[in-house]
């Protein structure tokens, strides 16, 4: 199989930094690593399998009502993910709140179905969906890493910055409270885009 299907969405056609899809949920769940990783996994699974299912039935969907058919398939998968999260990871599912439900309207999923799964065979569609979910997850984890490290001094809930450094304990360090506020996520994505485009000239906009 063509390797490009898997490699491209991760860097050159990254859904977040290049195609600008799925930003909505990407920013809200990245204050801590744990919810970000759970979110990334959920989106990858839903994107992969919805592309797969739509691709299986692509020749039988009437063109006029395809959006509703796609939404129903995606919503079914999201309900499954939500029920599993509530059963096995209740704390994280509470932290993610409405953003699990909002996977339904995550533009990556509809975007990949419209742009790829409707015109391709099931297996490449599955790979394409998984790769796009992975590219999305990569940015999510990178954002959450920076925000949790500088915002709370922890990684995945474990204290990494020594407690003796903090000024309350006579040290010199303070957590940067700005990092866990919503605007920080936007500015960080802007910086990631800046870095990526400095290295890949063909992405620069006129």
């Amino acid at each position: 199989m063509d390797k490009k299907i898997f490699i491209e969405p991760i860097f050159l056609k990254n859904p977040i930094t290049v195609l600008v899809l799925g930003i909505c949920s990407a920013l809200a769940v990245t204050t801590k690593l744990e919810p970000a990783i759970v979110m990334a996994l959920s989106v990858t699974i839903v994107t992969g399998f919805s592309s797969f299912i739509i691709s299986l039935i692509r020749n039988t969907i009437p063109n006029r009502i395809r959006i509703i058919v796609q939404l129903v398939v995606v919503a079914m998968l999201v309900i499954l993910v939500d029920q599993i999260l509530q059963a096995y990871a209740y704390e994280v599912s509470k932290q993610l709140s409405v953003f699990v439900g909002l996977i339904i309207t995550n533009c990556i999923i509809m975007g990949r179905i419209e742009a790829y799964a409707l015109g391709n065979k099931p297996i490449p569609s599955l790979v394409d969906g998984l790769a796009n979910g992975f590219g999305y997850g990569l940015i999510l984890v990178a954002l959450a890493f920076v925000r949790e490290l500088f915002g709370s001094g922890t990684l995945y809930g474990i204290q990494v910055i020594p407690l003796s450094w903090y000024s309350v304990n006579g040290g010199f360090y303070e957590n940067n409270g700005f990092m866990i506020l919503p605007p920080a996520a936007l500015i960080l994505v802007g910086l990631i885009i800046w870095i990526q485009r400095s290295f890949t000239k063909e992405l620069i906009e006129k």
Partner: protein
Amino acid sequence: MQDLVNLFVKSIFVENMVFAYFLGMCSFLAVSKSVKTATGLGIAVIFVLVVTLPVNYLIYKYVLTAGALAWLDPSFADLDLNFLSFIIFIAVVASIVQLVEMIVEKFSPSLYNSLGIFLPLIAVNCAILGGSLFMQERGYETLGQATTYALGSGIGWALAIVSLAAIREKLKYSNIPAPLRGLGITFIVVGLMGIAFMSFMGIKL
């Protein structure tokens, strides 16, 4: 009455859909290149939110929530259909958007021409579904509250997209480092606007 006004102001400024919850970001970034189209999309979002949210509220209250079906038959009293809410909400949103599109096309072709292209886009705008999900999560108690929340958050979203579009129109004339041009600087500008909107935090009427 006072709590409705409070909710209204809160949903426009303090809990702004875009700056506090990042909802509807995709179309927010994609359609904010000119003030004119941004205004069109903003109005369409307000309209669809105000129509769909009360409908979803009624469905949630009388069909989906735990024990809601008791009015039909007392034996349904311990039935909880909450897990169906995602699929019902999105189906309601998609079909109402379709309906609105047909009605607007029939009765006001000029409005249809200006909104036309945006209406199908709105079905998958997270701000619309997000409104319904927040309504469910926060448990708004009356139809009035749900409608006020819909109106307020819609206006908040429209305000955000129109002001971003105005800034981006001016940004075209600035000398920005090449890799930051376009998308990159837009993200940073939205971040800065978010900081400005944070000054509304804690306001109570």
